């Protein structure tokens, strides 16, 4: 199994968030307080820009994007959120989301089926919003109150595929799972149906009304709390498609090494995620110390139940695979080898000459601003090569490999092992993990 860069595109500003719809046809990219929405007719075609929204609704940086069908949710550092829906005329209409957040919103996630919307804030507050058709807005319900004095900024949220609970990770390294009994139903399935198939039916929204889940408790009940990596900052959390395994990424804060914690066996025999299953599985969590030149992961994405992709401060995503006997292991090469100097050096390349004047020295460390929006991207050869859009302002130093020059902010999954990554360097890269069915 290997990781291959398929195509790349460079935009004219740092990308703060991006998301791809479930069918892979709609792409949303956020740069500061503006969101660009792109569309394509089929996965084999390139995306074309169709709309630019956001400056009137968001006064500060857009920090999170999420798709549910053709609805787009965005949240911003101005503590607001908006749900964008496409009108029959093709325009994108904003819908008010009442968040009741006092501080900046950092992440937004749709519940399976699009029935609810979860927001996490920098003061530790978590809000779940439901649609109020009478007032034509999204009404909030506080799941966890914020405390500005604590360092528990909610860095990431993840809904269980059944919508029964919501996991959140905070900057103080804590993982919390709250019960969120959702209106999306468990369908009647034949015995012996795999967990993955049941999860897919959840996401499709089919089935009968939910029977009351007495094992989970009322809305907001704290089912499980733990600190997977003491001393580190928890950055991302993700459930696998079946809901039986959860991954938590911790960064290298507090002197702790970057780690990935995987908690498996979260489903009971009946296919439900219960508090008892969580507590028992938490005692059997597997912790991976990331090897290679990895500085920590800030985004996680399950491609399948057995393949997990993580990305963070290292410019190249990492792939993790679950073996046949259960344990997870880091897969794929960590990318172009770095020398002791930290910069990437192709074999045999000479050290570039040091610029003479002060102005030249300052300019060599600035990103070229004269870049154009090139969403068409270009195909990169199998051997990699220079990243797209290297402008005339960059020094003629050693060429960087097919990866981001800065922090990777977000990942978005596509079909059949493909996914996109967007970084602070303004690059949007399309990757393919070979060997994924």
């Amino acid at each position: 199994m290997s990781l291959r860069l398929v195509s790349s595109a460079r935009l004219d500003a740092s990308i703060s968030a991006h998301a791809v719809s479930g069918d892979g046809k709609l792409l949303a990219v956020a740069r500061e307080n503006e969101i660009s929405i792109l569309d394509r007719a089929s996965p084999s075609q390139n995306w074309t820009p169709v709309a630019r929204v956001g400056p009137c609704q968001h006064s500060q940086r857009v920090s999170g994007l999420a798709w549910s069908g053709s609805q787009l949710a965005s949240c911003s550092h101005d503590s607001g959120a908006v749900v964008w829906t496409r009108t029959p005329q093709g325009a994108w209409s904003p819908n008010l989301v009442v968040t009741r957040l006092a501080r900046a919103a950092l992440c937004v996630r749709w519940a399976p089926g699009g029935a609810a919307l979860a927001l996490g804030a920098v003061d530790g507050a978590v809000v779940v919003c439901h649609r109020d058709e009478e007032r034509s807005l999204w009404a909030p319900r506080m799941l966890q109150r914020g405390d500005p004095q604590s360092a528990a900024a909610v860095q990431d949220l993840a809904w269980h595929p059944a919508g029964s609970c919501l996991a959140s990770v905070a900057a103080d390294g804590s993982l919390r799972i709250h019960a969120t009994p959702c209106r999306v139903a468990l369908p009647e399935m034949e015995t012996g149906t795999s967990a993955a198939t049941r999860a897919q039916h959840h996401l499709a929204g089919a089935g009968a009304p939910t029977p009351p889940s007495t094992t989970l408790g009322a809305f907001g009940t704290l089912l499980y709390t733990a600190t997977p990596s003491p001393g580190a900052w928890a950055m991302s959390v993700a459930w696998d498609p079946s809901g039986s395994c959860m991954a938590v990424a911790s960064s290298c804060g507090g002197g702790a090494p970057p780690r990935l914690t995987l908690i498996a066996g979260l489903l009971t025999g009946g296919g439900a995620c219960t508090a008892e299953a969580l507590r028992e599985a938490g005692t059997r969590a597997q912790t991976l110390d990331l090897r290679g030149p990895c500085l920590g992961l800030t985004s996680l994405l399950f491609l399948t139940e057995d393949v997990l992709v993580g990305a963070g401060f290292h410019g190249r995503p990492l792939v993790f695979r679950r073996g046949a006997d259960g344990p997870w292991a880091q897969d794929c090469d960590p990318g172009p080898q770095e020398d002791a100097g930290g910069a990437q050096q192709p074999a045999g390349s000479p050290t570039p000459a040091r610029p003479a004047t002060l102005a030249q020295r300052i300019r060599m460390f600035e990103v070229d601003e004269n870049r154009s929006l090139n969403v068409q991207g270009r195909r990169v050869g199998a051997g990699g090569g220079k990243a797209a859009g290297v402008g005339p302002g960059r020094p003629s130093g050693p060429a960087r490999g097919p990866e981001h020059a800065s922090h990777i902010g977000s990942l978005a999954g596509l079909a059949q092992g493909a996914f996109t990554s967007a970084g602070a360097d303004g690059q949007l890269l399309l990757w393919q993990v070979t060997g994924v069915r």
Partner: protein
Amino acid sequence: MTASATRGTYLAEVRQAITQALCLMDYPSPHVEGHNKPVIEVEGPGHALIAAPIVLTRGAQEGCLVEHSINSSRISLRFKAQDEVERCIIDTHLKFLMHRAEDLGIVRKIPMAGYDVTFLITHAHLTTLSPGLLCDLLVTFLENFGTEVKASKLMLKTRSRIAVDGFWGTTQDLQAGD
């Protein structure tokens, strides 16, 4: 271990520490709505979002302090000076940088106590500056600063000698003319 080997080890350790310190995320202020302040400056040591500082020293005079928080980092450098002339040259050179801190962006106007210069790097800087190249900049600055100080000292002595020779030659001419 030779002096060049210890210097190489010191620079490698500094590079590794700076590389980890440049892992920054965007983190708005949880205290004031709409604000985005460097946590390393606002919060005190021991805060949950501030990592333990890393101190690297090479001898009694030369050292580096790397302080890392979730959205900002401080890198403080202290340089070795063999005599008062070198100390004066170092102070003059770094004051030149600190007076232009707004233009340079990453230089802190006032260095941390016990250090000659401090760089304050926030997540906003990393949206326009590549972390890898920024690390190269700082390590290159650290590596070459001593050489530039010695070159300035040599130039100062040369100019002093020329000035003294010129004055002494004028004095001798005046005496010969008497």
